Protein backbone atom coordinates (compact mmCIF):
# COMPACT_ATOMS: atom_id res chain seq x y z
CA UNK A 1 0.00 0.00 0.00
CA UNK A 2 1.43 3.34 -0.95
CA UNK A 3 1.58 6.19 1.51
CA UNK A 4 -0.96 8.15 -0.53
CA UNK A 5 -3.51 5.32 -0.34
CA UNK A 6 -2.76 4.85 3.33
CA UNK A 7 -3.37 8.55 3.98
CA UNK A 8 -6.61 8.55 2.04
CA UNK A 9 -7.81 5.46 3.86
CA UNK A 10 -7.48 7.30 7.17
CA UNK A 11 -9.33 10.33 5.84
CA UNK A 12 -6.34 12.64 5.56
CA UNK A 13 -6.51 15.48 3.07
CA UNK A 14 -3.72 16.90 0.98
CA UNK A 15 -2.32 19.99 2.67
CA UNK A 16 -2.49 23.27 0.75
CA UNK A 17 -4.79 21.83 -1.89
CA UNK A 18 -6.87 24.45 -3.64
CA UNK A 19 -10.53 24.34 -2.67
CA UNK A 20 -13.27 24.29 -5.31
CA UNK A 21 -14.02 27.82 -6.54
CA UNK A 22 -17.29 28.50 -4.71
CA UNK A 23 -16.09 26.92 -1.47
CA UNK A 24 -13.02 29.11 -1.70
CA UNK A 25 -15.13 32.23 -2.09
CA UNK A 26 -17.34 31.14 0.79
CA UNK A 27 -14.30 30.65 3.02
CA UNK A 28 -12.89 34.00 2.02
CA UNK A 29 -16.23 35.63 2.81
CA UNK A 30 -16.23 34.04 6.28
CA UNK A 31 -12.85 35.62 6.89
CA UNK A 32 -13.75 39.05 5.47
CA UNK A 33 -13.20 40.62 8.90
CA UNK A 34 -9.49 39.97 8.50
CA UNK A 35 -9.28 41.95 5.25
CA UNK A 36 -11.32 44.77 6.75
CA UNK A 37 -9.45 45.02 10.05
CA UNK A 38 -6.09 44.77 8.33
CA UNK A 39 -7.05 47.62 5.98
CA UNK A 40 -8.28 49.69 8.92
CA UNK A 41 -5.10 49.16 10.95
CA UNK A 42 -2.76 49.65 8.01
CA UNK A 43 -4.50 52.94 7.30
CA UNK A 44 -4.18 53.98 10.93
CA UNK A 45 -0.53 53.04 10.92
CA UNK A 46 0.10 55.01 7.72
CA UNK A 47 -1.72 58.03 9.05
CA UNK A 48 0.23 57.93 12.27
CA UNK A 49 3.42 58.59 10.30
CA UNK A 50 2.60 62.26 9.56
CA UNK A 51 1.58 65.17 11.71
CA UNK A 52 -1.49 65.89 9.62
CA UNK A 53 -2.38 62.22 9.65
CA UNK A 54 -5.61 61.34 7.93
CA UNK A 55 -6.10 64.85 6.61
CA UNK A 56 -3.69 63.84 3.89
CA UNK A 57 -6.36 61.53 2.47
CA UNK A 58 -8.28 64.67 1.49
CA UNK A 59 -5.37 67.10 1.16
CA UNK A 60 -3.42 65.06 -1.35
CA UNK A 61 -6.17 64.69 -3.97
CA UNK A 62 -7.17 68.33 -3.44
CA UNK A 63 -3.65 69.50 -4.13
CA UNK A 64 -3.46 67.16 -7.09
CA UNK A 65 -6.77 68.38 -8.51
CA UNK A 66 -5.69 71.96 -7.84
CA UNK A 67 -2.44 71.52 -9.73
CA UNK A 68 -4.14 69.84 -12.67
CA UNK A 69 -6.88 72.47 -12.62
CA UNK A 70 -4.33 75.25 -12.74
CA UNK A 71 -2.14 73.73 -15.44
CA UNK A 72 -4.77 72.27 -17.72
CA UNK A 73 -7.25 75.03 -17.04
CA UNK A 74 -4.75 77.55 -18.34
CA UNK A 75 -3.30 75.32 -21.07
CA UNK A 76 -6.59 74.29 -22.54
CA UNK A 77 -7.98 77.83 -22.48
CA UNK A 78 -11.25 78.02 -24.33
CA UNK A 79 -11.28 74.29 -25.16
CA UNK A 80 -11.89 73.51 -21.48
CA UNK A 81 -14.88 71.25 -20.86
CA UNK A 82 -18.03 72.83 -19.40
CA UNK A 83 -18.10 73.22 -15.61
CA UNK A 84 -14.40 72.59 -15.52
CA UNK A 85 -13.70 72.34 -11.77
CA UNK A 86 -16.45 69.80 -10.92
CA UNK A 87 -15.62 67.97 -14.15
CA UNK A 88 -11.94 67.73 -13.21
CA UNK A 89 -12.50 66.83 -9.55
CA UNK A 90 -14.87 63.97 -10.41
CA UNK A 91 -12.31 62.65 -12.86
CA UNK A 92 -9.26 62.96 -10.61
CA UNK A 93 -10.90 61.46 -7.50
CA UNK A 94 -12.45 58.47 -9.22
CA UNK A 95 -9.29 57.88 -11.21
CA UNK A 96 -7.19 57.89 -8.05
CA UNK A 97 -9.37 55.08 -6.67
CA UNK A 98 -9.00 52.90 -9.76
CA UNK A 99 -5.32 53.62 -10.06
CA UNK A 100 -4.86 52.85 -6.36
CA UNK A 101 -6.76 49.56 -6.66
CA UNK A 102 -4.61 48.48 -9.58
CA UNK A 103 -1.28 49.56 -8.05
CA UNK A 104 -1.92 48.35 -4.50
CA UNK A 105 -3.35 45.12 -5.87
CA UNK A 106 -0.03 44.59 -7.62
CA UNK A 107 1.81 44.60 -4.29
CA UNK A 108 -0.95 42.86 -2.31
CA UNK A 109 0.67 39.42 -2.48
CA UNK A 110 4.27 40.29 -3.33
CA UNK A 111 4.45 42.91 -0.59
CA UNK A 112 3.00 40.63 2.09
CA UNK A 113 5.11 37.53 1.54
CA UNK A 114 5.91 37.35 5.23
CA UNK A 115 2.23 37.05 6.03
CA UNK A 116 1.64 34.59 3.18
CA UNK A 117 4.46 32.36 4.38
CA UNK A 118 3.47 32.35 8.01
CA UNK A 119 -0.31 32.07 8.03
CA UNK A 120 -2.77 30.18 5.90
CA UNK A 121 -5.88 32.04 4.83
CA UNK A 122 -7.56 32.50 1.45
CA UNK A 123 -5.03 34.71 -0.32
CA UNK A 124 -7.76 36.67 -2.06
CA UNK A 125 -8.13 38.53 1.23
CA UNK A 126 -4.90 40.36 0.38
CA UNK A 127 -6.14 42.11 -2.78
CA UNK A 128 -9.46 42.57 -0.94
CA UNK A 129 -7.57 44.34 1.84
CA UNK A 130 -5.83 46.53 -0.74
CA UNK A 131 -9.16 47.56 -2.27
CA UNK A 132 -10.76 48.23 1.12
CA UNK A 133 -7.87 50.56 1.90
CA UNK A 134 -8.61 52.41 -1.34
CA UNK A 135 -12.28 52.66 -0.36
CA UNK A 136 -11.23 54.26 2.92
CA UNK A 137 -9.42 56.93 0.88
CA UNK A 138 -12.24 57.26 -1.64
CA UNK A 139 -15.01 58.03 0.87
CA UNK A 140 -13.62 61.32 2.21
CA UNK A 141 -12.76 62.29 -1.36
CA UNK A 142 -16.36 61.76 -2.40
CA UNK A 143 -17.41 63.95 0.52
CA UNK A 144 -15.01 66.63 -0.67
CA UNK A 145 -16.37 66.25 -4.19
CA UNK A 146 -19.93 66.86 -3.01
CA UNK A 147 -18.82 69.96 -1.08
CA UNK A 148 -17.05 71.24 -4.19
CA UNK A 149 -20.12 70.62 -6.29
CA UNK A 150 -22.31 72.59 -3.90
CA UNK A 151 -19.72 75.38 -3.77
CA UNK A 152 -19.80 75.63 -7.56
CA UNK A 153 -23.58 75.88 -7.43
CA UNK A 154 -24.42 72.63 -8.96
CA UNK A 155 -28.11 72.09 -8.34
CA UNK A 156 -28.69 69.22 -5.94
CA UNK A 157 -30.80 66.67 -7.80
CA UNK A 158 -32.07 63.14 -7.31
CA UNK A 159 -29.58 62.07 -9.94
CA UNK A 160 -26.84 62.46 -7.32
CA UNK A 161 -28.04 59.27 -5.68
CA UNK A 162 -26.98 57.43 -8.83
CA UNK A 163 -23.47 57.94 -7.48
CA UNK A 164 -24.09 55.08 -5.02
CA UNK A 165 -24.59 52.31 -7.61
CA UNK A 166 -21.88 53.86 -9.78
CA UNK A 167 -19.36 53.69 -6.94
CA UNK A 168 -20.46 50.13 -6.13
CA UNK A 169 -19.90 49.04 -9.74
CA UNK A 170 -16.58 50.84 -9.76
CA UNK A 171 -15.49 49.05 -6.57
CA UNK A 172 -16.39 45.70 -8.15
CA UNK A 173 -14.36 46.60 -11.20
CA UNK A 174 -11.47 47.83 -9.01
CA UNK A 175 -11.46 44.60 -7.00
CA UNK A 176 -11.36 42.55 -10.19
CA UNK A 177 -8.49 44.70 -11.39
CA UNK A 178 -6.62 44.27 -8.09
CA UNK A 179 -6.92 40.46 -8.16
CA UNK A 180 -5.58 40.38 -11.71
CA UNK A 181 -2.62 42.65 -10.98
CA UNK A 182 -1.98 40.74 -7.73
CA UNK A 183 -1.49 37.47 -9.58
CA UNK A 184 0.37 38.93 -12.55
CA UNK A 185 3.09 40.47 -10.37
CA UNK A 186 3.52 37.11 -8.61
CA UNK A 187 4.46 35.56 -11.95
CA UNK A 188 6.41 38.51 -13.33
CA UNK A 189 7.74 40.80 -10.63
CA UNK A 190 9.07 43.14 -13.31
CA UNK A 191 5.52 44.28 -14.05
CA UNK A 192 5.68 46.45 -10.94
CA UNK A 193 8.10 48.71 -12.81
CA UNK A 194 5.64 49.24 -15.64
CA UNK A 195 2.62 50.05 -13.50
CA UNK A 196 3.33 53.80 -13.24
CA UNK A 197 3.49 54.00 -17.02
CA UNK A 198 0.30 52.01 -17.49
CA UNK A 199 -1.59 54.26 -15.09
CA UNK A 200 -0.13 57.37 -16.76
CA UNK A 201 -1.30 56.24 -20.17
CA UNK A 202 -4.76 55.40 -18.86
CA UNK A 203 -4.85 58.80 -17.16
CA UNK A 204 -4.21 60.59 -20.44
CA UNK A 205 -6.65 58.58 -22.55
CA UNK A 206 -9.57 58.61 -20.13
CA UNK A 207 -10.58 62.24 -20.49
CA UNK A 208 -9.82 63.23 -16.90
CA UNK A 209 -9.04 66.88 -17.70
CA UNK A 210 -10.25 67.24 -21.27
CA UNK A 211 -13.37 66.29 -23.13
CA UNK A 212 -12.85 63.22 -25.23
CA UNK A 213 -15.88 64.12 -27.34
CA UNK A 214 -14.31 67.46 -28.27
CA UNK A 215 -10.81 66.21 -28.91
CA UNK A 216 -11.88 63.22 -30.98
CA UNK A 217 -14.86 64.89 -32.65
CA UNK A 218 -13.28 64.50 -36.10
CA UNK A 219 -12.56 60.79 -35.61
CA UNK A 220 -15.78 58.90 -34.86
CA UNK A 221 -14.14 55.45 -34.94
CA UNK A 222 -11.39 56.47 -32.50
CA UNK A 223 -14.03 57.97 -30.22
CA UNK A 224 -16.04 54.74 -30.31
CA UNK A 225 -12.95 52.77 -29.27
CA UNK A 226 -11.95 55.28 -26.61
CA UNK A 227 -15.43 55.04 -25.11
CA UNK A 228 -14.93 51.33 -24.39
CA UNK A 229 -12.27 52.24 -21.83
CA UNK A 230 -13.78 51.31 -18.43
CA UNK A 231 -12.09 54.20 -16.62
CA UNK A 232 -13.75 56.59 -19.06
CA UNK A 233 -17.06 54.77 -18.56
CA UNK A 234 -17.10 55.10 -14.74
CA UNK A 235 -15.93 58.69 -14.76
CA UNK A 236 -18.40 59.76 -17.46
CA UNK A 237 -21.23 58.04 -15.66
CA UNK A 238 -20.35 59.79 -12.40
CA UNK A 239 -20.17 63.12 -14.21
CA UNK A 240 -23.55 62.39 -15.72
CA UNK A 241 -24.89 61.91 -12.21
CA UNK A 242 -23.46 64.95 -10.47
CA UNK A 243 -21.98 67.50 -12.90
CA UNK A 244 -24.38 69.92 -14.54
CA UNK A 245 -24.49 69.68 -18.31
CA UNK A 246 -23.56 65.98 -18.57
CA UNK A 247 -25.89 63.01 -18.72
CA UNK A 248 -25.92 59.31 -17.94
CA UNK A 249 -26.71 57.32 -21.06
CA UNK A 250 -28.03 53.78 -21.22
CA UNK A 251 -24.91 52.89 -23.18
CA UNK A 252 -22.70 54.02 -20.30
CA UNK A 253 -24.74 52.07 -17.74
CA UNK A 254 -24.55 48.87 -19.77
CA UNK A 255 -20.80 49.31 -20.20
CA UNK A 256 -20.32 50.01 -16.50
CA UNK A 257 -22.28 46.93 -15.43
CA UNK A 258 -20.57 44.70 -17.99
CA UNK A 259 -17.09 45.86 -16.98
CA UNK A 260 -17.87 45.45 -13.25
CA UNK A 261 -19.23 41.92 -13.41
CA UNK A 262 -16.91 40.79 -16.20
CA UNK A 263 -13.72 41.99 -14.54
CA UNK A 264 -14.74 40.76 -11.09
CA UNK A 265 -15.62 37.26 -12.25
CA UNK A 266 -12.54 36.92 -14.46
CA UNK A 267 -10.35 38.39 -11.69
CA UNK A 268 -11.64 36.08 -8.93
CA UNK A 269 -11.29 33.04 -11.12
CA UNK A 270 -7.84 34.07 -12.37
CA UNK A 271 -6.60 34.68 -8.83
CA UNK A 272 -8.06 31.45 -7.48
CA UNK A 273 -6.38 29.39 -10.21
CA UNK A 274 -2.94 30.16 -8.74
CA UNK A 275 -3.93 29.91 -5.05
CA UNK A 276 -1.39 27.14 -4.35
CA UNK A 277 1.36 29.15 -5.93
CA UNK A 278 1.39 32.26 -3.74
CA UNK A 279 4.32 32.22 -1.37
CA UNK A 280 6.63 30.47 -3.79
CA UNK A 281 9.83 32.27 -4.69
CA UNK A 282 9.44 32.69 -8.47
Amino acid at each position, binding site marked *: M*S*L*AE*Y*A*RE*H*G*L*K*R*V*GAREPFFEYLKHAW*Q*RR*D*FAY*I*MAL*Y*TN*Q*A*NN*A*KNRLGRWWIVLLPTIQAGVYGLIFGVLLGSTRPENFIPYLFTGVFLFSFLQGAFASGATAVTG*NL*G*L*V*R*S*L*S*FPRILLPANAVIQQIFSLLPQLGLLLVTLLAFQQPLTWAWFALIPIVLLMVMFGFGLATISARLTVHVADLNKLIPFITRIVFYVSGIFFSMEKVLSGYPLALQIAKLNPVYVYISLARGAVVDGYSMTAELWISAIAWAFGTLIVGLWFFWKAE*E*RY*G*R*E*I
Partner: protein
Amino acid sequence: MAAKSKPQQKPVVVVDDVHIVYKVFASGRRATRGSAGGGLFARKLGLREVHAVKGVSFTVFEGESIGIIGSNGSGKSSLMTAIAGLNPVERGSIYASARPMLLGVGAVLLPAISGLKNILLGGLAMGYSRKEISANADAITKFAGLEEFIDLPMKTYSAGMSARLRFSIAASRDHDILIIDEALAVGDQEFRNRSEARMRELRDNAGTVFLVSHSMKSILDTCTRVIWIEKGELKMDGDPKKVVAAYNKHTGSTTID
Protein backbone atom coordinates in the same frame (compact mmCIF):
# COMPACT_ATOMS: atom_id res chain seq x y z
CA MET B 1 8.76 2.18 8.09
CA ALA B 2 6.80 3.65 10.99
CA ALA B 3 3.58 3.40 9.02
CA LYS B 4 3.75 -0.36 8.93
CA SER B 5 5.06 -1.08 12.41
CA LYS B 6 2.19 0.70 14.20
CA PRO B 7 -0.89 0.01 12.10
CA GLN B 8 -3.30 0.37 15.04
CA GLN B 9 -2.56 4.07 15.61
CA LYS B 10 -4.32 6.86 13.78
CA PRO B 11 -2.04 8.80 11.44
CA VAL B 12 -2.45 12.59 11.44
CA VAL B 13 0.30 13.67 9.07
CA VAL B 14 1.68 11.69 6.14
CA VAL B 15 4.66 13.10 4.30
CA ASP B 16 5.05 11.22 1.04
CA ASP B 17 8.33 11.59 -0.89
CA VAL B 18 8.39 15.38 -0.64
CA HIS B 19 10.77 17.44 -2.73
CA ILE B 20 11.05 21.19 -2.30
CA VAL B 21 12.90 23.21 -4.89
CA TYR B 22 13.48 26.95 -4.80
CA LYS B 23 14.21 28.83 -7.97
CA VAL B 24 16.10 32.06 -7.47
CA PHE B 25 17.64 34.60 -9.77
CA ALA B 26 21.28 34.65 -8.88
CA SER B 27 24.49 35.63 -10.56
CA GLY B 28 26.45 32.63 -11.72
CA ARG B 29 29.56 33.73 -9.87
CA ARG B 30 30.41 30.84 -7.71
CA ALA B 31 33.92 30.12 -6.64
CA THR B 32 33.32 26.45 -5.93
CA ARG B 33 34.85 24.17 -8.44
CA GLY B 34 32.83 21.68 -10.39
CA SER B 35 29.56 23.54 -10.04
CA ALA B 36 27.47 24.52 -13.00
CA GLY B 37 27.43 28.14 -14.09
CA GLY B 38 31.11 28.78 -14.63
CA GLY B 39 33.88 29.99 -12.40
CA LEU B 40 34.46 33.07 -10.34
CA PHE B 41 34.58 35.43 -13.28
CA ALA B 42 31.54 34.30 -15.19
CA ARG B 43 29.02 37.12 -15.13
CA LYS B 44 25.65 35.86 -16.00
CA LEU B 45 22.35 36.19 -14.33
CA GLY B 46 20.80 32.78 -14.24
CA LEU B 47 17.91 30.98 -12.70
CA ARG B 48 19.38 28.79 -10.01
CA GLU B 49 17.65 25.88 -8.41
CA VAL B 50 18.10 25.05 -4.77
CA HIS B 51 16.97 21.56 -3.89
CA ALA B 52 16.08 22.15 -0.24
CA VAL B 53 14.25 18.91 0.57
CA LYS B 54 15.02 15.72 -1.33
CA GLY B 55 12.42 13.01 -1.03
CA VAL B 56 11.50 12.89 2.64
CA SER B 57 8.79 10.49 3.82
CA PHE B 58 7.40 9.81 7.29
CA THR B 59 4.14 9.28 9.10
CA VAL B 60 3.13 10.98 12.31
CA PHE B 61 0.50 9.55 14.66
CA GLU B 62 -1.99 11.18 16.95
CA GLY B 63 -0.59 12.52 20.22
CA GLU B 64 3.05 12.32 19.18
CA SER B 65 5.31 15.29 19.62
CA ILE B 66 8.01 15.32 17.05
CA GLY B 67 11.33 17.07 17.41
CA ILE B 68 12.97 18.13 14.16
CA ILE B 69 16.73 18.62 14.30
CA GLY B 70 19.46 19.27 11.79
CA SER B 71 22.06 21.89 11.00
CA ASN B 72 21.22 25.32 9.56
CA GLY B 73 20.07 25.13 5.96
CA SER B 74 19.29 21.44 6.14
CA GLY B 75 15.70 21.98 5.00
CA LYS B 76 13.89 21.75 8.35
CA SER B 77 11.98 24.99 8.02
CA SER B 78 11.22 24.40 4.34
CA LEU B 79 9.67 21.08 5.27
CA MET B 80 7.68 22.60 8.14
CA THR B 81 6.25 25.44 6.01
CA ALA B 82 5.31 22.80 3.43
CA ILE B 83 3.52 20.74 6.09
CA ALA B 84 1.62 23.88 7.06
CA GLY B 85 0.61 24.28 3.41
CA LEU B 86 2.45 27.57 3.04
CA ASN B 87 5.21 26.37 0.78
CA PRO B 88 4.27 24.49 -2.39
CA VAL B 89 6.07 21.20 -2.93
CA GLU B 90 7.79 20.36 -6.20
CA ARG B 91 7.06 16.64 -6.06
CA GLY B 92 5.33 14.33 -3.61
CA SER B 93 2.46 15.21 -1.29
CA ILE B 94 1.66 15.94 2.31
CA TYR B 95 -1.57 14.73 3.86
CA ALA B 96 -3.01 15.85 7.17
CA SER B 97 -6.14 15.29 9.21
CA ALA B 98 -6.48 19.02 9.94
CA ARG B 99 -4.78 22.14 8.69
CA PRO B 100 -1.46 22.31 10.56
CA MET B 101 -0.76 25.64 12.23
CA LEU B 102 2.77 26.97 11.86
CA LEU B 103 4.26 29.21 14.45
CA GLY B 104 7.63 30.58 13.52
CA VAL B 105 9.90 33.50 14.25
CA GLY B 106 9.26 34.74 10.74
CA ALA B 107 5.56 35.35 11.33
CA VAL B 108 5.02 38.95 10.43
CA LEU B 109 2.37 41.07 12.02
CA LEU B 110 2.00 44.81 11.52
CA PRO B 111 4.87 46.53 13.36
CA ALA B 112 3.31 50.00 13.41
CA ILE B 113 0.22 49.05 15.39
CA SER B 114 -0.14 48.05 19.03
CA GLY B 115 0.34 44.56 20.39
CA LEU B 116 -3.34 44.37 21.28
CA LYS B 117 -4.41 45.16 17.72
CA ASN B 118 -1.94 42.59 16.48
CA ILE B 119 -3.60 40.01 18.71
CA LEU B 120 -6.90 40.79 17.01
CA LEU B 121 -5.36 40.72 13.55
CA GLY B 122 -3.41 37.52 14.13
CA GLY B 123 -6.49 35.83 15.52
CA LEU B 124 -8.61 36.88 12.55
CA ALA B 125 -5.97 35.58 10.16
CA MET B 126 -6.10 32.24 11.96
CA GLY B 127 -9.83 32.14 11.39
CA TYR B 128 -11.24 33.08 14.78
CA SER B 129 -14.19 35.39 15.17
CA ARG B 130 -13.83 38.86 16.64
CA LYS B 131 -15.78 37.81 19.74
CA GLU B 132 -13.55 34.83 20.43
CA ILE B 133 -10.45 36.97 20.22
CA SER B 134 -11.77 39.80 22.38
CA ALA B 135 -12.64 37.20 25.00
CA ASN B 136 -9.12 35.77 24.83
CA ALA B 137 -7.10 38.97 24.44
CA ASP B 138 -6.40 39.38 28.15
CA ALA B 139 -5.33 35.78 28.57
CA ILE B 140 -3.03 36.06 25.55
CA THR B 141 -1.46 39.24 26.89
CA LYS B 142 -0.96 37.66 30.28
CA PHE B 143 0.56 34.52 28.82
CA ALA B 144 2.99 36.63 26.81
CA GLY B 145 3.77 38.62 29.96
CA LEU B 146 3.32 41.91 28.12
CA GLU B 147 0.59 43.59 30.20
CA GLU B 148 2.52 46.87 30.49
CA PHE B 149 3.43 47.09 26.82
CA ILE B 150 0.37 45.79 25.04
CA ASP B 151 -0.79 49.26 23.97
CA LEU B 152 2.57 50.19 22.47
CA PRO B 153 3.29 49.70 18.75
CA MET B 154 4.95 46.37 18.07
CA LYS B 155 7.96 48.08 16.51
CA THR B 156 8.96 49.17 20.02
CA TYR B 157 9.14 45.53 21.17
CA SER B 158 12.35 43.61 21.40
CA ALA B 159 12.79 40.47 19.29
CA GLY B 160 12.04 38.32 22.31
CA MET B 161 8.91 40.25 23.21
CA SER B 162 7.39 40.02 19.74
CA ALA B 163 8.25 36.33 19.48
CA ARG B 164 6.51 35.80 22.81
CA LEU B 165 3.43 37.62 21.60
CA ARG B 166 3.29 35.58 18.41
CA PHE B 167 3.66 32.33 20.29
CA SER B 168 0.93 33.35 22.71
CA ILE B 169 -1.48 34.21 19.89
CA ALA B 170 -0.92 30.92 18.10
CA ALA B 171 -0.97 28.82 21.24
CA SER B 172 -4.08 30.52 22.62
CA ARG B 173 -6.32 27.84 21.23
CA ASP B 174 -5.93 24.13 20.82
CA HIS B 175 -4.74 23.14 17.38
CA ASP B 176 -4.93 19.60 16.17
CA ILE B 177 -1.49 19.98 14.65
CA LEU B 178 0.89 22.70 15.78
CA ILE B 179 4.32 23.34 14.28
CA ILE B 180 6.69 25.43 16.35
CA ASP B 181 9.73 26.62 14.47
CA GLU B 182 12.43 27.85 16.83
CA ALA B 183 9.93 30.29 18.28
CA LEU B 184 11.02 29.54 21.81
CA ALA B 185 14.68 30.19 21.29
CA VAL B 186 14.30 33.94 21.73
CA GLY B 187 12.19 33.91 24.89
CA ASP B 188 13.69 34.20 28.35
CA GLN B 189 13.88 31.26 30.75
CA GLU B 190 10.61 32.05 32.52
CA PHE B 191 8.70 32.23 29.25
CA ARG B 192 10.37 29.08 27.98
CA ASN B 193 9.18 27.13 30.97
CA ARG B 194 5.66 28.45 30.55
CA SER B 195 5.55 27.70 26.84
CA GLU B 196 6.98 24.22 27.27
CA ALA B 197 4.25 23.52 29.79
CA ARG B 198 1.69 24.80 27.30
CA MET B 199 3.14 22.58 24.58
CA ARG B 200 2.78 19.53 26.79
CA GLU B 201 -0.80 20.56 27.47
CA LEU B 202 -1.49 20.87 23.75
CA ARG B 203 -0.02 17.44 23.17
CA ASP B 204 -2.07 15.91 25.98
CA ASN B 205 -5.26 17.29 24.41
CA ALA B 206 -4.70 14.79 21.59
CA GLY B 207 -2.91 17.45 19.57
CA THR B 208 0.22 16.73 17.61
CA VAL B 209 3.19 19.04 18.02
CA PHE B 210 6.22 19.49 15.78
CA LEU B 211 9.11 21.33 17.39
CA VAL B 212 12.03 22.60 15.35
CA SER B 213 14.86 23.53 17.64
CA HIS B 214 18.60 23.63 18.06
CA SER B 215 18.26 23.20 21.77
CA MET B 216 18.67 19.48 22.41
CA LYS B 217 17.52 20.06 25.96
CA SER B 218 14.07 21.30 24.97
CA ILE B 219 13.85 18.56 22.33
CA LEU B 220 14.56 15.89 24.93
CA ASP B 221 12.23 17.55 27.44
CA THR B 222 9.19 17.76 25.19
CA CYS B 223 9.42 15.27 22.34
CA THR B 224 8.44 11.65 22.08
CA ARG B 225 10.12 11.12 18.73
CA VAL B 226 12.88 12.92 16.87
CA ILE B 227 13.50 13.28 13.14
CA TRP B 228 16.94 14.35 11.99
CA ILE B 229 17.14 16.06 8.61
CA GLU B 230 20.51 16.60 7.01
CA LYS B 231 21.12 18.23 3.61
CA GLY B 232 17.48 17.82 2.66
CA GLU B 233 17.38 14.12 3.43
CA LEU B 234 15.94 12.21 6.34
CA LYS B 235 18.95 10.91 8.21
CA MET B 236 17.38 9.34 11.27
CA ASP B 237 13.93 8.92 12.78
CA GLY B 238 13.11 7.42 16.15
CA ASP B 239 13.67 7.52 19.87
CA PRO B 240 14.75 11.02 21.06
CA LYS B 241 17.74 9.85 23.08
CA LYS B 242 19.18 7.74 20.28
CA VAL B 243 18.71 10.32 17.55
CA VAL B 244 20.02 13.20 19.66
CA ALA B 245 23.05 11.11 20.65
CA ALA B 246 23.78 10.34 16.99
CA TYR B 247 23.28 13.98 16.06
CA ASN B 248 25.61 15.14 18.81
CA LYS B 249 28.22 12.67 17.64
CA HIS B 250 27.83 14.05 14.12
CA THR B 251 28.17 17.68 15.19
CA GLY B 252 30.92 16.93 17.67
CA SER B 253 29.18 18.34 20.73
CA THR B 254 29.80 16.65 24.03
CA THR B 255 27.26 18.38 26.24
CA ILE B 256 23.54 18.45 25.84
CA ASP B 257 22.03 21.91 25.87
